[in-house]
């Protein structure tokens, strides 16, 4: 047993400028937001992000000027807003480098990296411009080992000349950062509900950082090993961060926060209002505890708490806020 507990600020500070990262979660769920806010406060620059369907975790990092290049399938808070406002603007203003894939191709890329193989064949993308076109030039790719030298490769199955597949290149990142329901100080991790691509993202990273709602005893998770998906020896650091995904949802713990998401989306379009949002909720607070007070403290957080038997709050007011 090793004690892998570390302070959130200290572990975020280990990420250098120019690092490659992926974050767990999916659109409006289980992003490691407390960690993301730390990266913004640390003013990290030139980060390379890899993801399938991120949401505001990427949007706030892109808007704060922390990101140089992304490889993705989608970036939005889904039904809360059809496109991430800072992502949209960064592309339209030429302030970010990116490459477009689909969710299946990105997840297959993480899976290939996690399995230690160079690529994965899939039957998707055929006939699409995701296959025909690329946003990064060959020169940009050749110049930077953090990006695959080739976006995709089409081939015929060696076993059947009628069978066409697309090979997607493996991803290996410096860091994967997950936010989960339960973890032990030893690095055993319990994800409840949908797992998204957290397991593949973790297992293709050099350094895995896990922030958790609860730190529990090792025996509590070893009692049901079939519910644990990432072995402790693949995890380097553990942080205890209650409400660490706010304003996003954590199944069985709390719902997304429609009021906070509304405030973000009302402010994220304009440069000055977005800066105002950052000042109020990120730069203007010392740490995640202060952030939680700033968003409304215990009274607000209690409104988000998941009801037993649901895993979310069935009474949550989601419209006409």
């Amino acid at each position: 047993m090793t004690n892998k507990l570390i302070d959130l600020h200290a572990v975020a500070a280990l990420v250098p400028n120019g690092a490659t990262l992926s974050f767990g979660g999916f659109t409006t769920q289980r992003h490691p937001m407390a960690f993301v806010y730390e990266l913004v406060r640390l003013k990290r620059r030139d980060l390379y992000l890899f993801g399938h369907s991120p949401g505001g975790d990427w949007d706030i990092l892109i808007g704060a000027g922390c990101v140089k290049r992304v490889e993705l399938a989608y970036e939005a808070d889904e039904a809360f807003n059809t496109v991430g406002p800072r992502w949209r603007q960064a592309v339209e203003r030429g302030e970010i480098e990116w490459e477009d894939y689909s969710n299946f191709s990105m997840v297959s890329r993480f899976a290939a990296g996690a399995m230690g193989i160079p690529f994965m064949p899939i039957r998707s993308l055929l006939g699409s411009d995701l296959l025909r076109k690329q946003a990064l030039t060959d020169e940009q790719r050749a110049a930077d080992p953090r990006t695959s030298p080739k976006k995709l490769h089409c081939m015929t199955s060696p076993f059947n000349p009628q069978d066409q597949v697309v090979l997607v290149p493996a991803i290996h990142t410096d860091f994967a950062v997950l936010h989960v329901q339960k973890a032990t100080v030893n690095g055993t991790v319990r994800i409840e509900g949908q797992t998204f691509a957290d397991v593949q993202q973790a297992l293709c990273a050099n350094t895995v950082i896990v922030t958790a709602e609860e730190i529990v005893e090792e025996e509590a998770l070893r009692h049901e090993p079939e519910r644990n998906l990432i072995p402790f020896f693949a995890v380097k650091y553990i942080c205890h961060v209650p409400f660490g995904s706010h304003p996003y949802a954590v199944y069985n713990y709390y719902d997304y926060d429609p009021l906070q998401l509304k405030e973000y989306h009302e402010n994220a379009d304009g440069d000055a209002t977005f800066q105002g949002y950052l000042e109020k909720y990120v730069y203007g607070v010392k740490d995640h505890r202060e952030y939680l007070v700033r968003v409304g403290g215990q009274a607000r957080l209690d409104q988000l708490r998941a009801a037993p038997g649901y895993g979310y709050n069935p009474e949550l007011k989601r419209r006409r806020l």
Partner: protein
Amino acid sequence: MAGQDYTLTELMAVIAAREIKDGEIVFAGTGLPMLGVMLAQRTHAPNCCIIFEAGTAASQLAHLPMSVGDPRVMREAAIAAGLNEIFSYVLQAGRVDVGFLSGAQVDRFGNINSTSIGPDPRHPTVRFSGSGGACDIACLARRTIIIALHEKRRFPEKVDYVTSPGWLEGGDSRQKAGLTRGGPSAVVTTMGVLRFRPDTHATYLASYHPGLSPQALAEATGFPLDTEGAAETPAPTAQELRILREEVDPERIFLK
């Protein structure tokens, strides 16, 4: 809609529901498709099951999700896993009967753009969220249904970026590209329903919504619209409207 006791969103949700057959495996995203599947489950297709790409199959939704990863999709699901399991073992394996898609532009062969507007995607005038799972569903579901706003600029001769392949250039071009199954079967728009001729795979107008004419749709379409044989879209029944309003979306998350 003027003079009618239902809204356009309600009409489109009802049309989407009627496209689903009992027992089918349905791959749905947030918004209108979810309304359609939940209505179908409560009317003619009690055994259809809904797949969410973030990792669940056969949810028994009690509250409308705002994301396919929403904790609400966990409600009495048959399995909870992740994207890899859903995309590999369910979608790519050929187990999805029908998938719902939408986008900013749709062309006459049902190719969809949800990436960006402008001739050069490296320097777009407008950028969108991106494919998400849409391209994968378009390639790998057994058929797809497209939901779209019917405006001339949204129905161009050619989309600026093929995010989700439909029938490509028509005829057998989809098969020639290596796609062995699937293809769009209907485009449910704010003005009518388009379908595809079996040989050319070009769209034709199957129905126009109550109060509209085939001419109005042709004028709102950026390519010549084949309107031969088009009929009026059947209106929602009182029972469909009651279920939609009282059971499917009483919170009015998506219903307008």
